[in-house]
């Protein structure tokens, strides 16, 4: 005796088993990402300071287009199967997987850019003043401070953050990954060459300045440990990325075993593609909310 309704739907529910199964799983995923989004809201509303404009919008938009395209191609691959066109199915499925890996590639690049970008906090206001002037000149220093206050207080009118405690953003020579004031202390480094970022909105690159490690209160790359802003950014996008990867692997498995399945059980195969597609669309759905909330708002 076989398990019923694996291919044909059950009349009163109109569903075959796997479709009900995937929707149930997606419901739990809604709660998972919902829990993370709730955490995002709470952390942001409760934060003194919430950065803005730190993520590249062109790159994020590109990735959004890539995922939307992959959603279209995955549903097209299912439609091709229903029309009996195996070759067309394979093409669309391959495109979907290509989009997935494209998305992940772009994301990895974004992560790399962040991991090699640093913020330095100085031990007191006078020291900070000295370094800001060294980097941006007298007028530049006032501009940068004003910009910081405007940018970072943009959506948070109750901020209590002292505008004099601003950090300097830039790169370290050699672009090391994950350096911090702790690694500097361990290596007993005394000075570092720091490449400050241009003023926000301009492309004038200031000259590199020499910074004494003893003047540094804290240094951190843009990593989860930097701030709750980056912590939640990395956690949510990494979890989403893992889902993209997992989905791509499953769809890849379907693509590679397509010939065998199509010959043996074409209807069930079409169902599997539908179920895989449903998961894929959910991954796209999460990004549809993730992109504006994390990148734009």
């Amino acid at each position, binding site marked *: *005796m*076989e*398990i*019923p*309704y*694996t*291919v044909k739907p*059950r009349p009163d*529910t109109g*569903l075959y*088993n*796997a479709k*009900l*199964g995937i929707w*149930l*799983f997606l*419901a*739990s*995923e809604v*709660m*998972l*990402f*919902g*829990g*993370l989004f*709730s*955490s995002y809201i*709470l*952390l942001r509303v*409760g*934060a*003194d*300071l919430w950065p803005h404009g730190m993520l590249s919008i062109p790159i994020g938009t590109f990735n959004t287009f890539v995922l939307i395209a992959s959603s279209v191609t995955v549903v097209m691959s299912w439609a091709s199967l229903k029309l009996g066109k195996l070759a067309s199915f394979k093409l669309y499925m391959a495109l979907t997987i290509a989009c997935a890996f494209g998305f992940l590639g772009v994301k990895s690049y974004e992560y790399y850019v962040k991991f090699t970008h640093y913020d330095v906090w100085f031990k007191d206001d006078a020291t900070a003043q000295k370094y800001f002037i060294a980097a941006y000149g007298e007028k530049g220093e006032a501009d940068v401070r004003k910009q910081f206050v405007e940018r970072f207080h943009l959506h948070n009118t109750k901020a209590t953050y002292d505008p004099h405690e601003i950090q300097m953003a830039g790169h370290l020579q050699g672009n090391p990954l994950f350096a911090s004031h*702790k690694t500097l202390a361990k290596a007993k480094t005394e000075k570092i060459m720091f490449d400050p970022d241009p003023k926000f909105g301009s492309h004038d690159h200031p000259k590199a300045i020499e910074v004494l490690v003893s003047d540094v209160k*804290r240094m*951190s790359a843009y*990593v*989860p*440990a*930097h*701030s*709750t802003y*980056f*912590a*939640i950014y*990395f*956690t949510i996008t990494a*979890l989403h990325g893992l889902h993209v990867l997992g989905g791509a692997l499953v769809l890849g498995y379907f693509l590679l075993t397509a010939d065998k399945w199509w010959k043996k*059980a074409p209807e*069930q195969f079409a169902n599997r593609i539908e179920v895989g597609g449903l998961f894929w669309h959910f991954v796209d759905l999460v990004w549809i909310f993730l992109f504006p909330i994390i990148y734009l708002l």
Partner: protein
Amino acid sequence: MQATTSTHTEAAHSHEHHHDPGFLRSYVFSTDHKVIGIQYGFTALAFLFFGFLLMMCMRWQIAKPGVPIPIVGGMLEAMLGDVAKGGVMSPDLYNAFGAMHGTIMVFLAVVPLAFAAFGNYVVPLQIGAVDMAFPRVNMASYQCFAAGGVVMFVSFFIPGGAAQGGWTSYSPLASVIPTNGQTFWLIGMVLLITSSLLGAVNFIATVIQLRAPGLTWMRMPFFTWAQFVTAFILLLAFPPLEAAGILQLVDKVFGSSFFLPTGLVVSGKPYDVSGGGSPLLWQHLFWFLGHPEVYVLILPAMGVISEIIACNTRKPLWGYKSLVYSVLAVGFISFIVWAHHMYLTGMGTKISTFFQTTTMIISIPSVIILTCLFMSLWGGSIRFNTPMLFSLAFLPMFGIGGLTGLPLGFNFSDLHLHDSYYVIAHFHYVVAPGTIFALFAGIYFWYPKMTGRYMDETLGKIHFWLSLVGMNLVFMPMFFQGLYGMSRRMSDGGATYALTNPANEGVVTALTTTVMKLNVFVTHAAVLLLIAQVPFIINVFMSMFNGKKVESDNPWQATTLDWQTPTPPPHGNFTKEIVVYRGPYEYSVPGHPTDFTPQNAPEPKLAK
């Protein structure tokens, strides 16, 4: 005859060759729901016993702080080193045992036993199905669970030992303890949550899609209803904890500050993290699962009891419809009561009142369920076998547990009782002489179906009476200790705060000698409870070989479909097509030739 999905190439082979799948495929990597159910059962019982032993060590420490534990103390020192120097539990080790006792009992013992073991074995049988909807997902779910169990168990032996921040793992403590026990705990939890989610999807899909023809929703046995609601709770309540677990893992491994506030000072030094996080966020995410979790603990137990009561009173359950609607209501409301675990976190009066109100509302369907079960006894022809004894005891024990929860549900009384031994007594009454008694009852009840032999009744009755007395002697005094003001999680049993401590002379609220003496009394009672389990363990193993053989496939003369199979049920469960003609509790129907009419039996000839 093999039950497989149509995709399995092996199905094609086995129809032709009937080849023996071999030991590994039959017993280790099986996709058969009955094998998986038994795997879950044995693993869960092993963890139940292990968790009990952890508690015994703690009880010794509470009764006699600073005194080496006899026999076991030496072993602990040998295995764990300095934390058990001289055979005495250090406070750190006590905390680790405490945290792991809770974690193991809830996530590795009771839920797997109540939901996964009983559910997997019985639900497909009760709905007339061939197997679960997704047998391979079922196997994956067990393997995830086993992996999680291994991770949790191994954490005891890593440098620094197991997690120490309580089963609730509150930040910042959980995040700042410098050892890796907490990380292992989090990884273990992620594995266990994944296992539960896979299981929940399977159960819900199975109950919705695979009910036999004629088995409408209102003809389903209450056990299956209870498991169905439990599965929904697991499906939707666990993910936020998984999210929180991921966040805490990132805090520990990558040094972020999701749950670490700005300005945190640890051991006198400012903690070098970014800050900006919220410890309360962890609590909300944890208890969002934590509260529905307790309904996961109790609902399958209520389901088990219902089946046993109906069968052993030879009459239908009283108020079947009320039971069904109440269990649905409990499942639904359980999602919006969680902050009654957080009354002391500084919430305002409005939100506090909201949670108090929903907490009071949820007690209504719970009481309805208990009342229906009590009423089901009225006029019954009661057979006092071992499963029935445990079921009967469940009713007042759960009553005590539930009623003592009321003062905890009101924030004004919870102010005094929060984090005291009263809380420990309350929840142990519900889970220990509550759920665990129901699970014992279920083991005695379904054992004949699984093995073809009864468990020994004499040993069963000894197990029952000693356990009943033991449970009450252990937990009843704790109500008084808690009312008196004794806090939870004190590794010295409160000796620091007792009147016996000269530093507390004249302190009005110091713990009295009565309270301290009760510590010793409770520890003795716990030893009695441990001894009470010995006849059970012997019985489980011995009866497999020496137990009295059943006279038929339906030795208890029950009506539900799980008893209309061969013994033990083969692959595919049923030897003929199942069609259901009637409800699940057609006992003692006037005019019928026997005092029970199975759900799938053809219409009997009525007596004249």
